[in-house]
């Protein structure tokens, strides 16, 4: 299973070479978006897959990161050295503040309250008249670095996004097996037991929530730069729902499942929407099938198939 993430990252890295043969702009755009949403999905998988904290307001973090960049740009502040920290800080602070309230609830209440905060951010963005309100805000140029404009180069920006994705994946991998991660995972298993061991699980969950928010903020920063545009739609609850679908589709609690899920969701959506306008009629049942047939999502399905093969192979000689 450890080869899979490497294969995925290699695939992303080689894509621009393949894209030379045609439709380069389209392919780069598509896969850039996949990687950006995969970063946010990683953050969400950290919460849902490892902490059983189903956050239904995750799009807000992306939106806040994106708006931070665009608003700064509209005031003439374009440099990454300022806009990136601001985007991360804004998303992290929002996650920390809302998380400190959300995490006092459990289960369905947690889902509802994260949704409520997500919608608050959405409506706030819609009413930001000086920054475009409902219409959103166009960025006239990508962020600059030390006054230079390296990200104007589409490929360079693509590889920057890939580097961010790999970095975030490595960060999450390290996090979940660390002392901190073990306490966080333990809280999912049995919060009362963790408390009686002497762990104040709330503090650990809040920290994880803030980290997850930061990943969302990074995704937002990249998204604003990739599309040169931000709009309240980035924060809509449908977006939050899509993120949840992505990680379930790929397989919860595996991290690379989040990337596989994002990839599958985006590519399938892209393909089906080319076939028919009502593509969600096909997509919906497909998703139901995956969840029904393989509880571990696409990764679980793959594991099922490969273990079946192995079984056949070992059974045949006898």
């Amino acid at each position, binding site marked *: 299973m450890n080869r899979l993430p490497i294969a995925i990252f290699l695939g992303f890295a080689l894509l621009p070479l393949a894209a030379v043969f045609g439709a380069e702009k389209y392919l780069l755009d598509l896969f850039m978006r996949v990687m950006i949403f995969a970063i946010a999905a990683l953050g969400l998988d950290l919460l849902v897959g490892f902490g059983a904290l189903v956050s239904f307001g995750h799009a807000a973090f992306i939106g806040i990161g994106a708006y931070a960049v665009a608003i700064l740009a509209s005031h003439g502040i374009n440099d990454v050295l300022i806009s990136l920290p601001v985007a991360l800080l804004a998303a992290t602070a929002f996650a920390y503040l809302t998380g400190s309230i959300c995490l006092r609830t459990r289960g369905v209440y947690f889902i509802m309250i994260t949704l409520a905060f997500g919608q608050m951010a959405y409506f706030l963005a819609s009413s930001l008249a000086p920054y475009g309100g409902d219409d959103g805000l166009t960025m006239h140029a990508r962020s600059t670095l030390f006054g230079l404009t390296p990200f104007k180069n589409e490929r360079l920006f693509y590889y920057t996004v890939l580097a961010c994705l790999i970095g975030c994946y490595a960060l999450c991998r*390290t*996090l979940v*097996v*660390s*002392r*901190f*991660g*073990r*306490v966080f*995972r*333990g809280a999912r*298993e*049995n919060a*009362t*037991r*963790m*408390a*009686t*061991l*002497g*762990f*104040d*699980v709330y503090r*650990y969950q809040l*920290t994880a929530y803030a980290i997850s928010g930061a990943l969302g903020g990074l995704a937002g920063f990249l998204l604003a730069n990739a599309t040169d545009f931000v709009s309240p739609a980035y924060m809509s609850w449908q977006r939050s729902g899509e993120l949840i679908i992505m990680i379930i589709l790929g397989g919860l609690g595996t991290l690379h499942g989040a990337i596989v899920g994002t990839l599958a969701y985006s590519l399938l959506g892209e393909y089906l929407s080319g076939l028919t306008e009502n593509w969600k009629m096909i997509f919906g049942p497909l998703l139901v099938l995956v969840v029904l047939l393989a509880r571990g999502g696409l990764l679980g399905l793959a594991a099922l198939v490969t273990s079946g093969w192995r079984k056949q192979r070992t059974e045949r000689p006898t």
Partner: protein
Amino acid sequence: MTAPVLRLEGLNKNFGGLAVTRNLNFEVAAGELHAVIGPNGAGKTTLINLISGLLPADSGCVVFAGRDVTALPVPERAKLGMARSFQITSILPGFSVLENVALAVQARMGSSFRFVGEAAAERALNEPAMAALDEIGLTTCAHRLAGHLSHGEKRALELTIALAMQPKLLLLDEPMAGVGRDETDQLIDVLSRLKGRFPILLVEHDMTAVFALADRISVLLYGQILTSGTPDAVRADPQVVAAYLGEEME
């Protein structure tokens, strides 16, 4: 005489109109195994929950290791050295047996706000955990999933977790509940070895276990201590026989 490890003063707890704990005064002395017995509904589990902090007391106070802990939340009390088991086994089923115990070691050793380094590979955590498993006799299960253990093994694991916490007081809520005769004997054996190393408050229905282990027995009835004394004194007390032991001991 040294000060008691745990002292409850005038503790009260009502569930709605039902007074489950009524003006309760109680002590666990240093080093003793103090058993609490009583019929169903006498308030035994409530008592343990009040001590460990899972339930807030309506009035009265809990003094632990010379400190008033009545207002402290569960994790704070645990950090002061209060370990407990549950009537319904409470472990981390998705973790390995070793990790269950290593987490208890982690709780008392250093900060858990460490974001790098693989916790499962830390010898500083695994070695004390293995030592505790060895002592209880669970070494062979160390790498199995805790959720896959037999009921008796889960009970033993809960004791191991408590042991690894190196507690100043161990609260055991019916550790023998639902365990077969053979495994009960093993658990009694384990408890008799732990006894004396730290004070233990044992709530138990299994009278064989109670009379084999306890230094002192308190009988709880309708949320109050009916009587308290040595096993022999309690066994002979006509009040206790009438209220609880009845024909079982005759």
